[in-house]
């Protein structure tokens, strides 16, 4: 799945546009784009499960939110926490949670897998919702972005919104490259086999459960990375970040963007974000209605999502078979 040349050019142009955006965009929109890039990482991590392993997880926000809460807990009240401490702990915490949840979940399939991941995520939701020490349903503030220093030297000042923007952009690119590599490697071949025909993959000599679990842990950890960025960016973590509503939104983003493509979910995050902004201006009371119509239209007319549209336009130009 090496991206074809037109696609590569498209992705590089998109990357250039993102890199140039802070030079021209207003601060409000820069904040929005930062959030959408984080959503893109989150959605990409879910695409590894839905689009490449065939595991429809309906509790993916649990890892996103858990990592955010971990950062909130690790950040002292009167100063930043070092990223060298916070990031490994947040990732290790989500990886461990994904290992436990995954261990149970990969024993099921189909609708049961959806239900069990949802149930686990709701357990997390209620835990944080009831826990008054962590702000209960109001959530908890993170007053300082993590510090990135070596000794006394400040490597990056994440509280500068330009620096943070590029930090997130680099994270997005890194996540994409990392996942692409994994998908091309022997591990990626196996999970694609599992998605296409699990019984046969098992019969060919692969312990499919083990591969599904590892895929689940990778996806969960990457979602945790997105949650870490989101908590740093927004400065607040609330139970809503790990509820089923959030899990549903990220799934919608993956489907809108086009599952099984990696870049599609990133496009989906942007489409979703800008449309939300646009629809809210257009019809502030009932913008969700417009969003609903849009989602239905995409599912009906673009079964492969926005990424499918990109591929179709290209094929149309090339004069290939319809």
């Amino acid at each position, binding site marked *: 799945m090496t991206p074809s040349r037109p696609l590569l050019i498209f992705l590089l142009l998109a990357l250039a546009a993102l890199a140039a955006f802070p030079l021209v965009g207003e601060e409000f929109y820069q904040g929005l784009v930062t959030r959408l890039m984080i959503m893109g990482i989150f959605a990409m991590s879910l695409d590894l499960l839905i689009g490449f392993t065939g595991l429809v997880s309906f509790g993916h926000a649990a890892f996103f939110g858990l990592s955010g809460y971990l950062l909130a807990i690790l950040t002292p009240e009167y100063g930043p926490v070092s990223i060298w401490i916070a990031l490994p702990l947040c990732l290790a915490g989500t990886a461990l949670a994904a290992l436990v949840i995954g261990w149970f979940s990969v024993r099921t399939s189909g609708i049961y897998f959806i239900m069990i991941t949802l149930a686990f995520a709701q357990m997390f939701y209620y835990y944080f919702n009831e826990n008054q020490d962590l702000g209960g349903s109001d959530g908890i503030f993170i007053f300082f972005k993590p510090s990135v220093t070596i000794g006394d030297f400040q490597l990056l000042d994440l509280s500068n919104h330009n620096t943070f923007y590029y930090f997130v952009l680099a994270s997005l690119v890194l996540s994409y490259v990392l996942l692409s*590599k*994994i998908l*091309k*490697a*022997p*591990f*990626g*071949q*196996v999970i694609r*086999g599992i998605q*296409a*025909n699990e*019984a*046969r*993959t*098992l*019969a*060919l*000599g*692969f*312990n*499919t459960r083990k*591969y599904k679990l*590892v895929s689940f842990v990778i996806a969960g950890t990457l979602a945790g990375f997105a949650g870490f960025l989101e908590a740093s960016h927004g400065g607040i973590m609330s139970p809503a970040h790990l509820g089923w509503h959030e899990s549903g939104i990220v799934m919608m983003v993956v489907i809108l963007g086009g599952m099984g493509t990696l870049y599609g979910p990133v496009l989906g995050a942007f489409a979703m974000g800008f449309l939300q902004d646009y629809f809210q201006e257009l019809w502030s009371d009932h913008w969700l209605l417009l969003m609903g119509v849009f989602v239905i239209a995409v599912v009906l007319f673009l079964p492969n999502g926005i990424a499918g549209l990109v591929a179709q336009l290209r094929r149309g130009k090339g004069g290939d078979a319809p």
Partner: protein
Amino acid sequence: MSQPLLSTHALNKSFGGLVAVDDVSIDFEAAKVHAIIGPNGAGKTTLINLLSGDLPPTGGAITFKEHDLTPKKAYAISQLGIGRSYQKTNIFADFTCLQNCWLGAQSRMRTSMRFFRPAKAYNEVRARAERALELCGLTERMDTVASAMSYGEQRQLEIGMMLATEPELLLLDEPLAGMGTDESRQVVALIKRLAKDHTVVLIEHDMDAVFAVADVLTVMVNGRVLATGNPEEIRANSQVQDAYLGTGEEEAT
């Protein structure tokens, strides 16, 4: 008689009240083609599913060399050197032929938990996959998507995928099912070639093919073994004639 490569002892499989495989004890000798025949519903495919680990037995034991296969899962049995093909074509429809064989070939790496080096760079995997394609006669179809091929070619691929795992023992579940005469002849030739350096367990309804390739036959009826012997013995067996061969018409499927 030499030590059998694979043997079942009092093997049992029931689905609820239905006993599909009933007290079956068979020895499969190394380097032989051992065919299992019998009418539809005799429990042949269930037996293969038990041998390959696709289904767990309800009772009895299966031994392969010194290994007890009874509690083992399908992937572990495959790793011991037992390959199987399916009666109902069970391929990766959206993958190319090479990709279909790739997974089987890759499963012989010590582990596929490798995340960074591209799969393409593993030349020994490519070599195994290409050898499997050559054996099943699909080298020219290497880059064709499986679902775009004819039914007969998909059946060949079915066998190729199994061969990519370089098994020592082959479990072939009706490899000729639904094939035309020409295609059948090719596959029979392939089975004969494979028989030279593999042990084969073959389920097949095409009696001409069975008697052409089998060294040993076991006849199953209603989940039980009716008789085992060489082709002449089976042909001459009056019980077998009554139960199966003698009915005149052959099963179409």
